[in-house]
């Protein structure tokens, strides 16, 4: 009996110590400042940074009021709902001082002193300069206030206790400011500051560990987000034509590139925002990412991309294929690389369904990419090409963009697997994909669960 009492007592003390260690003070509420109190130049600078940070993507429900939050952000641990970052007094950040706003960006703590879940990428925003934090504050405090209460997160115990985040931070989070590299030029440093900071590219493009923290030793080595593969942005990039600063700039600025295809899934929202920001910032991001692709990453599968070298479509591409099935039905003998029937079925589906748009005669973005340029066909996982085949491409509401019909309603699992097997064999030099059926299953579920709001 005494042992039990002692155990309970010790646990209570430990809990109290932990709670005291985890707790952070609230910052006093303020009277919402008038919009006129902010410097117009700060607001404009903040607008540019907010677009670079893709803030609207998570903090706006599709079709809803800007920055009013409430969008479900699915994570491996549960659903986090983005918060209302309009200056509404009751449900937004209207009572937040600049100090409270800056603390949330740099330390992941809200005005009340509660820890924020790292779905909010403060592990990147921590590098923001004082001037940029002030500019973002000025921008958000001058948006239209929207009364919208954020739904409660759907997280299991103990993750629903915010103090647990303090332990996560102790393991994985270090508050820090950006340190420019004096050996590099201003454009490179601007790019590094943006990519590692406000643009938080690594939030999707860096693999995460079991506790959801980015694996810093594998920065930009490729990750997953919302059922999409965010491709590696280092030397292991699966793009058949190596990227360079110019092609990255074109792609990020316009959402497509003739040798790489169109942005889709969550990336299409990123490129939409990058179409609106200062052009030199996009160039800086492209310069830094091109440098990453040329210099970092564990194994080089092809020659490193040279950021100053114009891309050479012939480099790293599979041999020009002479598809024996084009226009001939599916009666010819298949090559020995795959079981005959699967390969023939895939070839037949490609010729009759895909080729009329994807034969390379209609220019992007309205024609389909010639698959020998397709990163999706060359990537380690087939998930992205499955997503697009099933659901198609839909330009975001009210915008121009590539469109493609989805084939979820008419293509069976076996037929899709045959098509993918054929495309992989015909348009890449990579080994066949394993476990295609699992990815097909997951992609169909994502389409059916989220319906039309699915990116």
């Amino acid at each position, binding site marked *: 009996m005494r042992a039990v009492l002692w155990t309970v007592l010790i646990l209570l003390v430990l809990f109290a110590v932990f709670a005291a260690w985890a707790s952070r003070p609230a910052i006093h509420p303020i009277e919402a400042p008038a919009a006129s109190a902010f410097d117009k130049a700060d607001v404009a600078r903040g607008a540019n940074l907010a677009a670079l940070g893709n803030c609207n993507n998570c903090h706006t429900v599709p079709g809803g009021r800007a920055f009013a939050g409430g969008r479900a952000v699915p994570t491996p641990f549960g659903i986090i709902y983005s918060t209302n970052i309009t200056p509404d007094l009751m449900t937004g950040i209207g009572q937040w001082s600049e100090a409270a706003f800056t603390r949330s960006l740099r330390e992941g703590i809200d005005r009340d002193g509660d820890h924020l879940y790292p779905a909010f990428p403060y592990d990147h925003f921590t590098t923001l300069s004082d001037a940029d934090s002030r500019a973002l504050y000025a921008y958000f405090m001058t948006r239209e206030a929207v009364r919208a209460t954020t739904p409660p997160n759907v997280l299991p115990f103990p993750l629903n206790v915010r103090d647990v985040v303090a332990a996560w931070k102790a393991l994985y989070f270090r508050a820090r400011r950006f340190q420019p590299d004096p050996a590099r030029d201003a454009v490179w440093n601007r790019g590094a500051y943006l990519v590692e900071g406000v643009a938080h590219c690594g939030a999707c493009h860096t693999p995460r560990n079991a506790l959801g923290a980015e694996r810093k030793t594998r920065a930009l080595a490729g990750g997953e987000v919302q059922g999409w593969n965010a491709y590696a942005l280092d030397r292991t990039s699966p793009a058949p034509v190596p990227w360079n600063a110019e092609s990255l700039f074109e792609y990020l600025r316009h959402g497509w590139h003739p040798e790489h295809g169109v942005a889709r899934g969550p990336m299409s929202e990123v490129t939409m925002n990058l179409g609106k920001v200062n052009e030199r910032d996009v160039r800086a991001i492209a310069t830094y990412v091109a440098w990453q692709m040329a210099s970092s990453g564990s194994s080089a599968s092809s020659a490193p991309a040279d950021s100053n070298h114009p891309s050479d479509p012939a480099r790293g591409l599979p041999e020009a294929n002479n598809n024996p099935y084009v226009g001939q039905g599916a009666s010819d003998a298949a090559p020995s690389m795959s079981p005959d029937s699967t390969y023939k079925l895939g070839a037949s*589906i490609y010729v*009759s*369904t895909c080729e009329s748009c994807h034969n390379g005669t209609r220019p992007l973005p309205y024609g389909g990419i010639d698959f020998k340029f397709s990163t999706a066909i060359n990537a380690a996982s087939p998930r992205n090409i499955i997503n697009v085949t099933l659901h198609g491409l839909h330009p975001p509401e009210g915008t121009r963009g590539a469109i493609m019909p989805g084939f979820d*309603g*008419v293509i069976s699992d076996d*037929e899709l697997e045959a098509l993918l097997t054929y495309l992989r064999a015909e348009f890449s030099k990579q080994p066949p994909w394993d476990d295609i059926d699992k990815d097909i299953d997951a992609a169909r579920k994502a389409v059916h669960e989220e319906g039309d709001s699915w990116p």
Partner: protein
Amino acid sequence: MAVTLDINGHTQDIDADPQTPLLYVLRNDLRLNAAKFGCGLGQCGACTVVVDGEPVFSCVTPIMLLEGRKIVTVEGLGTLEMPGPLQQAFIEKQAAQCGYCIAGMMMRAHALLLKMPNPSPEHIRAALEPNLCRCGTHMRIVAAVHRAGELMRGSAEATDAKKNAKAEKK
């Protein structure tokens, strides 16, 4: 090379290359001329038919993918003498001007009403978004789909009422 298709409840053997788009088979082989050729790229919706309850662009769908699936075209919604609720609603609301897009609109609306018998105007707009119309009868089309939903629910309610009445008599 014959492919067996189930179109509007009729199973038939089609003597065509399995790679032939369904639209060509419907129009050229079966003389089912409701579905239209618009862009041929799955981008305008004029060729839309319903397959297993889902709207599908028949111009980019080869018949080899359709064996064992149930295909419905406008011809399957009713006849000249006995128009179905969707057809009746489109006539009532005079939703067609040139009419080229209308068969596709009706089939996409049919798929919507199968899943959602009482859609809001927002639902109708969102569902019909892939289908283009250049005459500009969009408002009438939305009204016709709404009306078709009413007619369908009405006939369902009427059938239920009849059944109930019969049950009471017994």
